């Protein structure tokens, strides 16, 4: 079988390891990429499900080279790498609408990332990837080759027609085991000077961004928009009050009011108040009793009876 739904099945031969000597195949499901928001590269992209956890671009390159021959593989992106559309350059040039600007600001912050502490990322089990090939023809060819291989494998007994995982991939993208963790242990303690430089860069861009944000806010205070409204923004002549402080103050005031009111009520100023309070108390008591009764019922219903003394 070479097909599940509209996914084509691509088994990979996994070389055995001393720890797990059983010969294994890993199954990748792939289909032409058709995202909800189309992009220019869709036609020459393949969508892969269930990539192995240690996939890297080099791994996939080697798989597609063995299917299509060298040079057909352009790039690939993995599941959580695709969350942010990585085209920051295009956005920086656009300075038109407000929406765009916010995106730009965020990206600027992102640009100064901390040094990486792992040599490479791992993919979650069963996660997806998008592979971009050189042209549309390669996509079709890839799927066709896989179908062909399926036919071939059903004929030949040995069945080792499938691409071998990790074949021809440079050692550096295959670091596993203790080496990986030793490397991690080195990476997580970068040179202090490097860190300092990194922070400085970050703070510079953050500060410039803050000041530009303040500037734009200030501008927004004076400029009416197309509809003639002036947006109310933070900051003004008075020093900036923090929103939560205002909130806290308000809650405090409300509490004070409430306490005052309650004190008055507790005084039992009117007779009806006392009466109502009593009624309320009784109601509360009954409510609590009902609650307790319900709880006891639940206890009674549970499998191990809670009312028999332990033996």
């Amino acid at each position, binding site marked *: 079988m070479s097909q599940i739904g509209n996914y084509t099945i691509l088994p990979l031969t996994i070389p055995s390891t001393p720890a797990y000597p059983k010969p294994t195949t890993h199954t990748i499901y792939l289909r032409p990429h058709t995202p909800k928001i189309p992009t220019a590269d869709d036609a020459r992209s393949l969508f892969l499900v269930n990539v192995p956890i240690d996939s890297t671009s080099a791994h996939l390159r080697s798989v597609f080279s063995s299917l299509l021959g060298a040079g057909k593989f352009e790039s690939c992106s993995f599941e959580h790498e695709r969350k942010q559309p990585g085209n920051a350059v295009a956005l920086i040039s656009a300075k038109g609408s407000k929406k765009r600007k916010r995106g730009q600001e965020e990206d600027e912050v992102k640009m100064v990332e901390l040094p990486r502490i792992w040599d490479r990322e791992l993919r979650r*089990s069963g996660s997806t990837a998008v592979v971009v090939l050189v042209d549309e023809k390669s996509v079709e060819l890839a799927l066709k080759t896989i179908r062909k291989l399926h036919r071939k494998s059903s004929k030949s007994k040995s069945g080792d027609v499938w691409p071998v995982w990790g074949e021809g991939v440079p050692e550096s993208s295959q670091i596993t085991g203790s080496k990986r963790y030793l490397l991690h242990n080195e990476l997580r303690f970068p040179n202090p000077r490097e860190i300092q430089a990194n922070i400085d860069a970050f703070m510079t861009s953050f500060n410039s961004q803050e000041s530009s944000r303040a500037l734009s806010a200030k501008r927004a205070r004076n400029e009416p928009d197309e509809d003639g409204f002036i947006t109310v923004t933070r900051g003004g002549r008075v020093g900036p009050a923090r929103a939560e402080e205002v909130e806290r103050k308000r809650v405090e005031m409300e509490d004070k009011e409430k306490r005052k009111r309650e004190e008055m009520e507790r005084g039992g100023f009117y007779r009806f108040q006392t009466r109502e309070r009593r009624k309320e108390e009784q109601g509360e008591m009954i409510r609590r009793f009902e609650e307790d009764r319900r709880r006891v019922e639940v206890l009674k219903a549970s499998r191990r009876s809670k009312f028999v003394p332990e033996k």
Partner: protein
Amino acid sequence: MAPLPSKRRKLEHTPSDKSMDEDQSENHIDQQSSAESADEAAIPQLKQAPLRQKHTQAIDDAALYAGGSYKSSLFKLQVDELLAEVQPNYEKRLSGVNEALRKLKTSLEGIEDREPGSVSEATKSLQNSHKITVPFPDPKPDKNAAYKLSYSRPSNINVVGSYALKNMVKTDGALSIDMVVVMPSSIFQEKDYLNYRYFYKRAYYLACVAAGLQDEVKDEFVLTFEYLHGNSLQPFLVVRPKLGDNGKNNKGYEIRIIPAAPPSFFLEAKLRPGKNAIRPKDSQADQTTSLPPTPFYNASLQADCNLEPYLKLLHASSKLSGGFKDACVLGRVWLRQRGFSSRLSEGGFGQFEWAALTALLMKGGGPKGHSVLSPGYSSYQMFKALLQYLAANDLTTKPLYYEMENMTNIKSNLPMVYDGPRGQNLLFKMTAWSYRLLREEAKTSLDMLNDATFDQFESTFIIRTSQQLQRFDCSLHLSCPSKQLETTSCDHATNERKFATCVFDVLHEGLMDRVKIIDIRQPDSSSWSLKSSSPTSSSEPFLVSFVFDPANIDRLVDHGPPAEEKKKAAKFQKFWGEKAELRRFKDGSILESLVWSSGSAYAVFRDIVTYLTTCHFGKEVSDSLIFIGEGFEKMLPGGSSTKSFEALKQAFNVLEQQVRDLEGLPLQLRQLSAVSPQLRYSSIDTPSFSPTQPMKKPADILIQFEGSGRWPDDIVAIQRTKLALLLKIGNLLQEVDTSIATRAGLENDEHRLQNCAFLDIIYGSGAVFRLRIHNDREQTLLERQVKNKSINNLAREDALSALSAYKKTFLQLPLLNQSIATHCTRFLLLSPTIRLVKMWFDRHMLLGQVSEELIELITARTFLHPYPWRAPSSTMTGFLRTLSFISRWDWRQAPLIVDFTGTMNSKDVDSANTRLEAWRKIDPSMNRTVLIAASNHDTTGTAFTDNGPSKMVAARMTTLARSACKLVKDKGLDLDHRALFSSSTTDYDFVIHVSPRFIATQRQKDTKSKFKNLEVQSDIDLETIGYQPVQLYLEELQKLYTDSIKAAPRPFKVNLTHATKLAGAKEEEGEQEVVIHKSAILAEIARLGGDMVSRIEVQR
């Protein structure tokens, strides 16, 4: 609603909360009315239902339950359930009893009289005709005695006891029905009370009854002899229905035929506790005044006379007071759960004593003859009031003489409740130690019932507290010496009982305040057949149990009296023999003293006990000693003392001082707090370090600065600023102290909102700290982000998880750390217990899933809410009680609540309950929040349970605890503590064996050989700090396969293999033909593990 709580508290106030003293009688009237109504509530269906409409009654009931006579409505409801549950079904279980009783009665009345005969004649004739051996008590009667034994028709036959009063309680064994056969006064003489004569006649009479019944009912019933409450003076006849005809009946009931003396036949004045009734053979009769009293003998005789009078008394009491019967049932359950019964071997205080004491106190016993209990009390009030009476009054020094004037006080360490009208000491079967234990239990239960915050129903009536290993810190077996003990008393007592008394006296005096409770259990007697003679004392060893006082148990020097007080000093020397020595102390005093060689608490204790027994009972006895209880403590790596944590603690204090003294910090320091198990005495391995061997696992600490407006208003920027600050602190510290090395590290690279940096501070001494900065601005920013509706869900979720991580690390952990550390110093045993419990979790491969903090909370509960016991005073009791709590904890329905400061009230508890219910409503299948562990710091209860354990792990935890508790119960004293810690891997789907090389780097113990050659190169040493490849590997695995696999790591044995287990089935994303591709995953795991994984073993 706000005024309610205070009002409620007022309503809850029960009259029994007050001391049961003088104000009792004044309160009498209004209590009566309130309790009457409570009484109505107890049997509403009988009295009220027809009278009122259903609705009003419900409201009425509710009001009744909510206020007044019970601890709380929940408690009352539970008590009702309990009472219904323990009541046997009389019709079903005891069918045929009445017929059997009637039949026995007719048979008894038909037995023919026997002419008086001498002792030897009478015995012989019975032996010949029925092969029955007369159960004479020791010493056996003189063959040549002048008196005659005879039999004639009983003057009365009556059923007494709980069957007659209809207050029986379900038991494991047969329900027993007491049938009293009153012997006619014609066969006795007035002087028969002397020298066992009464008891010989009684034994003969019983044998005749047995003979007569054997002829009549042999086919239906089995007859055996037994001692009443193990008292060898009072044998009686047990009649059990035969199995054959009805298989079901075998456990149903037994009828106990007890011969009774004719009431008030013997003079009460002659049998008072101060009188002698066993004359020494060679003395004159007129010497009575100077002879030592025989209280036990006298009371046994009186007990025989009083069987019927007490039935009348109890019957009258239950008529007088509605709550009486139920109070007796409650008392009975309470006593049983604490291992008390009327039997001599089980304390001598059972249901009968409870009921009779309640009945007496209802009529008097208070000051000026006022009654202590009011008949108007509800059953619970009466129960609690009796506990209060037991707890508050010391009946050994201030005996209760009920309706009895001018009693002379006899000095003794035995309790006394003398019932004047019936002339009997109710507590004559109690021993000095059982009375102390009873009072201790009463005090504990009273404290427990006065705790208004938590529901104590379960601890009062349900939990079996008498389990040896959970109750006592140390038990020891002691064999009774074969030779007769010489005592001055001539009272009737078996050799064992005499020996037990001596043992108690010696241990009590010798151990002083080291122990709180000493309990001695003698081997019990059982029934024997009519044909054989009564079983001689068995050779089974005694069981002596102790509860330690942790503050004093390991004291090495005991101070005796000063040398000037000659008399006391001589007594001290006599008691301690050669061990006593005169010493001069720093304050100039010269005291008799004892010095013990240092060691663990158990070692010191064992030395003392062995010395005392050798000294006082000889080598034979001390060689027979077997101590039980130390094993658990010995399992802990690095010892059980908290001293091994002190070095790190001091290093932390030094660091704190250095940080405080730092000049040039950009912000003012607020506080430095510890957040590591190593800094709160609760890590399994004690932190050990040396200049050549720094700590493998850095101790986490937090630093907080005073608030400042200079922090940026952005969460990511704050994280970066923290990193810069850390670098700055590191540089400053290095400048101040050249022995310090620092390095800044990064973490949480995937979560930009979470803390991204830490600073390792490595001292030359080898202490390593990992410093993080706490900035309280983060919380507001994160909360704002969580509430922000304009950002997408994903970002909000991110903020939410960052917020929960923030709360855990920066808010909850410091509080928990402080609480645990404080209580570890308050309860000396908390630290080793936590470590042992963690070890248990670790050995069962749950430590990766259940957070250490949660385990600490669970264990702290055992100490802070210890009821029904007191706080544990040994690692063993602490550990076993914790396990038993886990096994009982129904986390589906109940939260764990730990109150560190004792400031929580019932409202807090309610809110935790409500929260749990809310969680269960939102997430009934418990995919997210499984356990709720609230404390006074964290009322949400999810701080340490947010990231697991999952439902599966929690269920496994409960199952494991249950089977452990079962093992403890089944094995009893023969328990091998190691059995609790061994686990099997068969339940797991597959096992990953990690090659031993990498475990060596994880466990500090093993580093020795590995780094020997590197000891001089400090920079290489630095690199290995905090390098835990196996840990990292596991974390990655968990992240990659969150939904499918549960990993549970632990080293099997040091230096052997490391097993990582993964359980659960893998579901793969896909269409209808889902493939569970296990082998592919296993191959991935093997690839990732690389050289670290030696083998993957697939189990199924």
